[in-house]
């Protein structure tokens, strides 16, 4: 009788050798560049540039807060097969480094050709100009990382993605550029509509739960009006909420926006006290059911803001 160890070893070997047959890939899929993006926003923007020539997956789901994603080995499986990894950068998705370390894929290591930091070249908002420490909460020391919320950043983000794709598949440059130009034209067309929708509310203050929508506000002339969190990542204290409600009343702030995973009931209590409304914005593609593409996400956020401020 064979020993259990030998039987197990044979079973594992058979599994590994038979692995290609288990992989859900056909010949056409094998020719495509396999891209993994850390967030669904970057997945959508990569698909916009790569079109049919890429197969894109994301590590965070749209309904997951990308600040603090649990590093599951299933994420390592995705990165293990990737030709290109697109990260948000600005310390939003630092967890991706742990995923990469566990994936044993040298193609996507930091500095490798298969690594794209989508934040390169962006004008980053809220970069601290003085010393920061954690008494200020879970601050981002290199600036606010939620730039994908601003459709005006799409040109630069997609340029970074395009450069990464071209590095790996230079022969497809014309196709990538064509896809990107078509996508930016669609953004351009929608931008006029979005700007017109929010134009009547220019200068209006909006309270956020967590400062995720600063780029979106800045793009369309809205003003950040405090946050429900005491400090980033720190739950609100009664004293903070009391001050916030007073400020909202004094400043006549009429809207509180939250991400789907925030404490909506708390936001509703604050809004009720201050005589404001609460609206859930899509903090990522796929965060709400109306936001399944990048353009739909911006569209939904703009419509929701306008409706909330009306």
């Amino acid at each position, binding site marked *: 009788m064979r020993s259990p160890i030998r039987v197990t070893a044979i079973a594992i070997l058979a599994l590994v050798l038979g692995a290609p047959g288990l992989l859900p890939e056909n010949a056409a899929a094998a020719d495509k560049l396999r891209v993994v993006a850390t967030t669904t926003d970057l997945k959508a923007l990569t698909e916009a540039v790569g079109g049919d020539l890429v197969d894109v997956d994301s590590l965070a789901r749209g309904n997951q807060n990308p600040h603090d994603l649990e590093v599951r080995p299933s994420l390592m499986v995705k990165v293990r097969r990737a030709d290109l990894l697109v990260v948000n950068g600005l310390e939003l998705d630092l967890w991706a480094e742990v995923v990469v370390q566990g994936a044993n894929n040298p193609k996507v*290591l930091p500095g490798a050709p298969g690594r794209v930091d989508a934040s390169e070249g962006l004008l980053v908002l809220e970069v601290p100009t003085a010393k920061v420490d954690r008494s200020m909460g879970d601050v981002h020391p290199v600036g606010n990382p939620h730039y994908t919320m601003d459709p005006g950043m*799409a040109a630069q983000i997609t340029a970074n993605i395009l*450069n990464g794709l071209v590095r790996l598949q230079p022969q497809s440059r014309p196709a990538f550029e*064509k896809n990107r130009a078509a996508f*930016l034209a669609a*953004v351009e067309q929608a931008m006029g509509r979005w700007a017109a929708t929010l134009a009547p509310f220019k200068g209006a203050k909006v309270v956020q739960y967590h400062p995720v929508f600063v780029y979106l506000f800045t793009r369309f002339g809205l003003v950040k009006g405090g946050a429900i969190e005491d400090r980033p990542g*720190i739950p609100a204290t009664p004293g903070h909420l009391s001050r916030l409600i007073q400020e909202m009343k004094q400043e006549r702030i009429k809207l509180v926006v939250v991400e789907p995973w925030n404490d909506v009931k708390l936001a509703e209590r604050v809004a009720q006290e201050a005589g404001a409304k609460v609206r859930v914005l899509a903090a990522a593609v796929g965060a709400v059911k109306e936001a399944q593409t990048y353009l739909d996400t911006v569209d939904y956020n703009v419509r929701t803001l306008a409706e909330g401020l009306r």
Partner: protein
Amino acid sequence: MRSLVGIGLLSAGVLMSAPAAAQDVEALRQELQQMRKQFEAMREGYEKAIDRLGERIQQLETRPQPAAATPAPPGLAPAPAVAQTAPADPPAIAATPLDLARPRQPFALYGNRGPGQLLFDMGVAGDFIGNLTQRNVDKANAGTFAGRENRFFPREIELALFGQIDPYARAEVRVEAGEEDQGEIALRLAEANLTLLSLPFNTQLKMGQMRNRFGLLNSIHEHDRNFIDAPNVLRWFLGEEGLVERGAELTWVAPLPFFLEALVGVFNGDNEDAFGRGKLSEPLVTGRLRTFFELGDAGAIQLGASVASGETTERHRNTLLGFDAKYKFTPVGWQHPLITLLGEMIYQIRRVNVLGEDTNGDGVPDTPDQTRVRNRWGWYAGGEVQPFQTGWLSRFGAGFRYDWTQYPVMRGREWAVGPFVSFSPSEFLRFRLGYKHTERATRDGFGDNESSARKVDEILFQATFILGAHPAHPF
């Protein structure tokens, strides 16, 4: 006299309440004013930066392009209303002698120190333990933290430095200080290793001193673990510090649609509790298989099997087999798991020397010295629940652990049960309070100082903080 003081305090309170309210309003006004100023400053900064970039683009467009320039690909120009905030790939500009004379990295770092400028990450983790137990347990040094009963002490103050060495390798160095006996602080090298990241066939090689990837908890530092104290089975079979060895580990992630990681390692075998031979000529060999499955959107389970086989100080073989499982249930939209369950089992096959016995009491052994195999085992299972999704209550958790283990060499066994509650004001600070009851099947071996401790009751407290960088925790 007391009544006079009370009246005085009451009067002072009444007199101060009105100005305090006025001060609040004034403070809020000042805060508001300050926020307005900050916003104006931010807007001005933004506009200036846009102007500067515009000027730069104009300058670059009017300047003749050098042949080596690699501008952003054609077609990248943003549509007019889509403001591209910076050029994607700035054209290369011929360097002037002045440019060449300027200090460059890494020397330039000293002039530009700031976020993102450090060449590696560093962090400090502090882990303090307090425990209260019975007097006889204290006297017998038979508590969970032997020799530190009824004390509050630093268990593990860790300075961690980690980062990329170059494009092909990363390194981590961890130095720890902690109390080992009453008042005695020991400083030790906890880990120092490098990992080669870009080896062929999707393998990685980690070499140096490391916490071995044997089972679930051994590779995790104490401040990051799910429980206040190390499970009894790990303390008995791997020692107080766990399996920390010098050598190398090779890992391979299988090209499968699900996660399967294989690991083999070769080490000195310095751990005196389990091995202790300490020679590469008779190495400690380790192996591990780990797999993981998502169970729907919310559930996930990790399963592992480990082996460590080496020689003891008696030059006999000791083989440890480990089996582990961890399950987490994280409802969609939650930032932390609602339920975490985990457990490990260790099975030991160890040959030991047994001295001859004096059966007739004449002081001379009547049976010869011999070697025997000790097949011993133990396990633990535990978990934690964090029942609230958001708000302050989400920072609370409650958990438990049950331990059962035989002793690796001597006769007997013990079991323990320990519930605990935890509170984390933020991601970087955590407090735990727990109770642990241990019962041993024997007094032998737990009788220092003419005392004994078969039953042990302990109240345990843990305070943990993290300063600076701390890598995300694996599943």
